[in-house]
């Protein structure tokens, strides 16, 4: 059981990356060190005001991470905050870590004057859908479409 009091949400640091890679590999089943190196370069602390790569740390252990960005006029929408990824260590789940990460992202968005947060999720990933819905998120007025190119 982790103590939420001891937990701190902060910007990622290069030394955190190994643990983030491990958490992601636990969720997706794939280790992607190169990909995460690139994400650190693009979203890492303080590079761009509009980009967030946050980690939740308790007792020097990284329990979870979240990546988000404010995007302007994407798909013709006024500036809004997108959450691209969120992941919590399996043994630290259901203790509010995900909620804290999302709250921190929301505060970051609000500081930039953004009042809408969006995400896109796999329809069959009920765990993450239930999580975002528990945070008050509802279907956005968009439909994601795709096709196989012949």
């Amino acid at each position, binding site marked *: 059981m982790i103590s939420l009091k001891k937990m701190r949400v902060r910007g990622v640091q290069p030394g955190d990356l190994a643990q983030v890679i491990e958490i992601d590999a636990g969720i997706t089943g794939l280790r992607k060190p190169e990909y995460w190196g690139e994400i650190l370069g693009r979203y890492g602390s303080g590079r761009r005001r509009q980009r967030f790569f946050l980690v939740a740390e308790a007792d020097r252990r990284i329990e979870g991470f979240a990546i988000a960005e404010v995007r302007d006029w994407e798909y013709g929408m006024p500036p809004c905050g997108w959450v691209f990824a969120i992941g919590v260590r399996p043994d630290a789940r259901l203790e509010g870590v995900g909620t804290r990460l999302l709250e921190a992202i929301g505060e970051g968005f609000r500081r930039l004057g953004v009042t809408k947060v969006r995400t896109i999720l796999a329809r069959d990933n009920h765990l993450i*859908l239930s999580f975002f819905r528990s945070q008050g998120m509802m279907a956005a007025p968009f439909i994601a479409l795709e096709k196989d190119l012949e």
Partner: protein
Amino acid sequence: MRLQKNTLAALCSVLEFAANPGLQLSAAEIAAKYRISPHHLAKVLRSLGRAGLLESVRGVGGGYRFTGNAKRLTLMDVIGLFENISAARRGGRRPARREGAPARPAAAEVEEALAVVLSEIDEIARATFSTITLDTMLKLMARRRR
């Protein structure tokens, strides 16, 4: 999409229980609050009992107690007891036509294409109902009240 009367009565009941954890409620109380016929509601509550969401309490002032977990029980868990919202229900892919086989009747072609469209709608409905827990639903109602 419209839900049947039974489903609506079941949802009102479980939400009433979930909003009052630990409380024992009688069919008559719920029927009066939600203006559902008591006879009709009694049947719905028995179904919820059989599904393990409620347990009946016997004796004077008897009624039902909620035994589900509002943070894990989803709208789908309740709706699925009364309606058939199955993603697989309407088939989907067109069977490959064999060389030389007669063309399929025109209506079958329309129906098959329509089945693809309808199953898309079903899948979205399922994903929605399956990821809204009773707890999330109560929060949604509280927000709308504000």
